[in-house]
């Protein structure tokens, strides 16, 4: 059964550095999402992406964040200048047109030192 995959599984970076988190959604999914979960807290929506543009973003998704789907396959989340408070688990999700179920990847644990 197809799955959403994410790389890397764990990323450690220094504060101020740029990171790119990668997701490979299920091939027939058209809507894509990024969520994050700070340790011990609930899962929070960051951004949704459809038809090569952002359809909705949260207050968390400020100018240091960006998303793109450069090659029609990978869906990436870039954090330009990481801060300590960006340390979290980042989940990618996708869904098909006409459906409401989102399928999640295993997550990338980002640690900012």
């Amino acid at each position, binding site marked *: 059964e197809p799955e959403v995959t994410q790389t890397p599984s764990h990323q450690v970076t220094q504060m101020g550095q740029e990171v790119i988190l990668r997701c490979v959604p299920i091939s027939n999914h058209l809507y894509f999402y990024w*969520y994050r979960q700070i340790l011990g807290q*609930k*899962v929070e929506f960051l951004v*949704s992406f459809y038809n090569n543009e952002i359809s909705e973003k949260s207050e968390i998704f400020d100018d240091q964040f960006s998303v793109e789907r450069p090659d029609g396959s990978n869906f990436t989340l870039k954090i330009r200048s990481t801060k300590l408070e960006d340390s979290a688990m980042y*989940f990618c999700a996708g869904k098909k047109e006409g459906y*409401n*179920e989102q399928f*999640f*990847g*295993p997550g990338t644990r980002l640690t900012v030192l």
Partner: protein
Amino acid sequence: AQSVTQPDIHITVSEGASLELRCNYSYGATPYLFWYVQSPGQGLQLLLKYFSGDTLVQGIKGFEAEFKRSQSSFNLRKPSVHWSDAAEYFCAVVLITGGGNKLTFGTGTQLKVEL
């Protein structure tokens, strides 16, 4: 304000006992409702969902949930818990109209199973 509430942060049950995890939502319209499970170090796995129709829905791993419009609730149940059910459980909603397709999660309930 729109919200999803899971009143129980931690629940401990004995293996073989029944389980009910509570979820309440506060939205103007009826949302789509989901339960996800997260095992330690793992991603989010969909247990079940409710969109419309029969208010008692069956999911994977023997779980079921009942939508009660009058109580704005979508409680998750299992008649007999297994040790492997120990995990964190999240209730989540998607607004049918006006809220886009983003999932809004509750704070989660950590389930511990005693052998």
